[in-house]
């Protein structure tokens, strides 16, 4: 399994991917710096630190969510490409090995995503504590970033699922459109259209309001959809014919 995982990481972290990944991380840091409003000066930020922190958490949360989610979809797409698929021919001789191959693929995607969000988390903590007087409470940040990871992994599983069923690269537009549409939904609200209700019920949905992460429904319920998609993906990947 470890050798398969190394293969997947070697495959994923090509020179082009490393450049793209580095750009994403740099954009996250620059975005965090920008949303901190450091140009206002330490003394000004110290006048209303609680208020500025709330604004920062909302803006930086949105930035990290968008960057990490799009990167997660991109990573899952790269790992679902035909050139990765063809590695099955070279590395597997039976179903057990094929299972190891695909599990290592999913694991590589999840770990790469967790790595990017860990980077964003550490950057946020360092920037806030070193350059601002904001009283950052880690519990809120951990809760927010945990939901971002949950959503990103959900989107990755969706990519793997769609590629397993349709096996066409254009299918990656589906999770992107769903994610983008979800971000346009005003949440929380008293009224949602049917489509909005379906999307909010299916894809992990959360928002940060006044230091609280508000969720549309319990994470366990989202886990049902995630598990079903994941199990179907695993079964299709292991038992379907390799072409």
């Amino acid at each position: 399994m470890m050798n398969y995982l190394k293969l997947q990481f070697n495959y994923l972290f090509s020179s082009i991917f490393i450049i793209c990944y580095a750009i994403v991380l740099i954009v996250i840091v620059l975005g965090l710096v920008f949303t901190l409003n450091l140009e206002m000066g330490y003394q000004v930020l110290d006048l209303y630190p609680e208020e500025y922190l709330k604004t920062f958490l909302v803006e930086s949360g949105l930035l990290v969510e968008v960057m990490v989610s799009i990167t997660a979809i991109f990573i899952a797409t790269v790992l679902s490409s035909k050139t990765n698929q063809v590695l099955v021919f070279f590395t597997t001789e039976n179903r057990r090995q094929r299972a190891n191959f695909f599990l290592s693929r999913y694991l590589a995607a999840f770990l790469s995503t967790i790595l990017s969000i860990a980077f964003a988390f550490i950057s946020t903590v360092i920037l806030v504590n070193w350059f601002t007087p904001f009283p950052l409470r880690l519990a809120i940040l951990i809760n927010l970033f945990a939901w971002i990871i949950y959503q990103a992994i959900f989107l990755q599983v969706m990519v793997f699922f769609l590629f397993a069923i349709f096996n066409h690269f254009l299918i990656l537009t589906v999770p992107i459109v769903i994610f983008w549409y979800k971000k346009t939904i005003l949440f929380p609200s008293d009224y949602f259209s049917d489509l909005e209700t379906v999307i909010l019920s299916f894809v992990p949905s959360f928002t940060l309001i006044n230091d609280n992460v508000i969720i549309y429904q319990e994470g366990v319920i989202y886990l049902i959809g995630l598990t079903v998609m994941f199990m179907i993906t695993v079964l299709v990947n292991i038992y379907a014919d390799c072409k």
Partner: protein
Amino acid sequence: MNKAIKLENINITINNLTKAYSKDKGVFDLNLSLNSGGINLLIGKNGSGKSTLLKCIMKLISYSGNIEKKRWRIGYAPEYYIMPDFFTVEEFLYNIGRIKGLGKAAYHDHSIYLLKMFNLESYRHKQIRSLSNGMKQKVNLLQALIHDPKIIILDEPLIALDSESQKNLLSYLHELAKTRLVIISTHSPEKFRYKSRNIIEIVNGRIQ
């Protein structure tokens, strides 16, 4: 005192194998026994079912019937391959070797030998995408041989190879076939001019 060395017989027995893509495409009710000691050549027209049979042996596709073989190491080089372009030759072979259970030292020794045989030493650290089709085919063949498998399955191995490489490969396979099970799908059986060869012709998914 001379000690007789008993060669292990490596074989695959195929019973009633059927994989139907359509009414006349696939393989149908194949019964076949493939043994070590000589090169097994699968011949037939395009679409006759040669590659399908090899994929069934590799369990890359589902089928009905039975394929009996022990859990020997298998090396497989597919015909229509898309190589992982961003790997260097070294990275690719090393990863495959490790996955197939090769130790670091064994990989090192065997890779040097094979790369030399295929004149790929100077391309060792080059990315696969920078190689010509012939070179890529060599890498494709190398990954199937890198872990010293007991069963070697090559789908159209001579395609894109220059005459010198073809000659080297053929003599290497001939040597391997003495102690290993070698199965080759080819359109050029005349190039395998060895006494110890077993020709299996497949026509419309059935053995002639």
